[in-house]
């Protein structure tokens, strides 16, 4: 803006007046600048104080001091409570006895409803959210904040969010499973193509949930490409697959009970755990083996921010990840092995390709997978 320019002489300002105005503006700008600088400094100070992103050498001490004052942490997780969640909380509590760790265990859809309602009301109860498939929805709802943990540095870059909005906690491998009383060894289908054999018609089940049939369809689309996938799914629809409106685990139970010979969307460690207890069921990894990652997220305003970050540190640490091993989950930590029993389904260990569906991909493909499911399978 040129207040004293030649073209704007209409205002008839004298040179003195121009100087005075310029001086006044200059003073004003300096004043504003000083305020802005101060505010900026305060913001920067605030950001560096935020336990979520603080990287100073006294980080650990700050977290401990803060967590000691807060005295509590509330974890929302979709891990099975008895087998994984409680051992992790116990481990955390043993290490930090001054923080009372409590949890709410829900399936991801309920988790999403709860954290969204809490965010809308501006009143978080949750300190740490651990779940499968919610990364994009939670981010889109502007519920979480980026965090940094020294523990997350050892995880491969493509398994975590570059901006730090989530970090991986565990992997899952998905595939078929079959009843070993109903299908003799050697007669089980060995590939996606084999699933189209009409001798399986009416004998296959899957879960009609987002993590069930929809994820199966997303997986097929991801490795076959849209055209081939559509042709394949049309053929598969002829098998009259029974939809079960429950979690994938429940479908495996129906196969164990002999109600169905096959299911297509098992978390492959489930049949192993059950077979170990004597159930007539076996996992059936189909190449390429579908895999997904679960992750941990930090809400924007957790009621116990220091304890929350301390818990995330523990969950991502070797100690925390080892608890997953005991629970037959697949630890996301590259330095922690899954229990040897589970090697039979890890694609790298049995020489199969992996079909990794990253969170963003899973979310982006969901709408079309759902409409394909409705169109082809929901009759």
């Amino acid at each position, binding site marked *: 803006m040129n207040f004293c320019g030649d073209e704007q002489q209409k205002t008839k300002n004298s040179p003195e007046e121009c100087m005075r105005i310029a001086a006044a503006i200059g003073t004003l700008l300096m004043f504003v600048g000083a305020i802005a600088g101060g505010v900026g400094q305060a913001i920067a100070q605030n950001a560096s104080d935020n336990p979520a992103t603080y990287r100073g050498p006294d980080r650990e001490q700050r977290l401990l001091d803060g967590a000691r004052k807060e005295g509590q942490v*509330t974890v929302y997780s979709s891990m*099975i*409570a*008895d*087998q994984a969640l409680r051992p992790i909380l116990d481990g955390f509590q043993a290490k930090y006895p001054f923080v009372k760790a*409590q*949890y*709410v*265990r*829900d*399936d991801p859809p*309920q988790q999403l*409803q*709860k954290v*969204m*309602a*809490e*965010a*809308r*009301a501006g*009143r978080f*109860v949750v300190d740490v959210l651990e779940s499968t498939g919610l990364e994009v*929805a939670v981010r*889109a*709802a*502007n*519920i979480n904040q980026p965090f940094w943990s020294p523990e997350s540095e050892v995880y491969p870059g493509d398994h975590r969010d570059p901006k730090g909005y989530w970090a991986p906690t565990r992997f899952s491998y998905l595939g078929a499973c079959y009843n070993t009383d109903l299908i003799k060894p050697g007669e089980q289908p060995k590939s996606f193509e084999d699933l189209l054999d009409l001798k399986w018609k009416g004998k296959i089940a899957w879960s009609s949930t987002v993590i069930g049939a929809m994820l199966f369809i997303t997986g097929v689309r991801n490795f076959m490409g849209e055209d081939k996938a559509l042709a394949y799914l049309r053929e598969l629809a002829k098998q009259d697959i*029974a939809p*079960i409106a*429950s*979690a994938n*685990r*429940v479908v*495996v*139970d129906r196969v164990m*009970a*002999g*109600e*169905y010979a096959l299911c297509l969307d098992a978390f492959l460690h*489930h049949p192993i*755990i*059950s077979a170990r207890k004597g159930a007539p069921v076996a996992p059936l990894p189909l190449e390429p083996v579908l895999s997904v990652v679960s992750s941990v997220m930090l809400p924007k305003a957790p009621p116990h921010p220091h304890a929350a970050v301390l818990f995330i540190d523990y969950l991502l640490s070797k100690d925390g990840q080892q608890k997953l091993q005991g629970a037959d989950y697949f630890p996301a930590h590259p330095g922690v092995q899954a229990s040897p029993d589970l090697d039979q389904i890890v694609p790298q260990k049995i020489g199969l390709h992996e079909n990794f569906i990253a969170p963003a991909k899973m979310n982006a493909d969901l709408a079309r997978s759902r409409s394909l499911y*409705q169109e082809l399978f*929901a009759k």
Partner: protein
Amino acid sequence: MTALSGAVFPHSPALVRRYPLRMVILGVLAGAAILPPFLFLAYASLHQLDASGGFGASTFSHFAAIFAERTFGPTLVNSLSYALGSALLALVIGAAQAWLAERTDAPLRQLLYIASIISLGVPYVLYIVAWLLLLGKAGPVNALLQQLFGSAVPHLNLNSLGGMIFVEGMLWSPLAFLLLAPVFRNSDAAFEEAATVCGAGLVATFRRITMGMPLVFPAIVLGLAFLEIFVHAGGAIYGTLLSLIIASVVAYMPYGLRYAQIGVIQIHPELEEAATLSGARQTRAFVRIVLPLLVPALVSCWLFVFLLAVRAVSLLLLLVGPESQVVAVALFDFWNNGQIGELAALGAVWTAIMTVFSVTFLLLAGRYQMPVI
């Protein structure tokens, strides 16, 4: 407001006439409990949702989308057949049991009461698992039928509309029985009156069971509405036991009312009029005459709602917090996680506790001459 209390107590206009103020207060309380979730649903159905689940511009698109969905018609028809079918089945079984228990001298007929009370306390998920084990495609009944008829495929399929109606009908038959038993019991004064009362009771029970399904608030929807209300209520109610109690009060009020209603119907206005004529003031007449007569109905109503409430799952799924875990939801988690052994163990312990509790309750009630059921 009188109309509202009239709606709450449809068969007791006399009470409304006699205690207008009390009935108005009751009506307001009932309205305050029922209206918020209803208003939330109405509002949510007419507004767009943004990514954070907050409300945006108003819209009819949700309704348009539902009606455009090609499965909408069949789903609606299925739901109606399911609700009507299971209510009819529950009614037939419940009425037959009530007749046996109240109008015959069948041996051990009192067991029907105990069995019904216990079965009311069994969480749904246990019920369904048990039916699946028994009548599922791989269950013993199907195996037997297949052997008998030499067929390769199972005859019974629980994962069908018929199967769902069967299981749901069985699930509600104890409720139908408990609601109908007093009707059969109290209808022995005169035959024609008996027929009328029985008929009316059957219709009312059928309506209650049918209406308590999809037609009012599906539990999961009510749970969602309450989640929204509690989380916005400020204070510290969200996630607490108190929040579960409030939600359950609203959800089970219709059952409680129906049960209490039976008690109210039985109190003849003449009793109270006599007290008033003898010089007692209205309040005193209510406290001394009406209330004592109502107590058995209220006590049995309490047990009844208690047993229904402890087995609720879907209503509470969205409401439980870190310190308000309830057994029914824990059982549901076991089921979802394939921990069938743990499910059975906790379920058995829970059913045993409910049985001991109910029997003790009934014995105590009998001891104090309260014919609870």
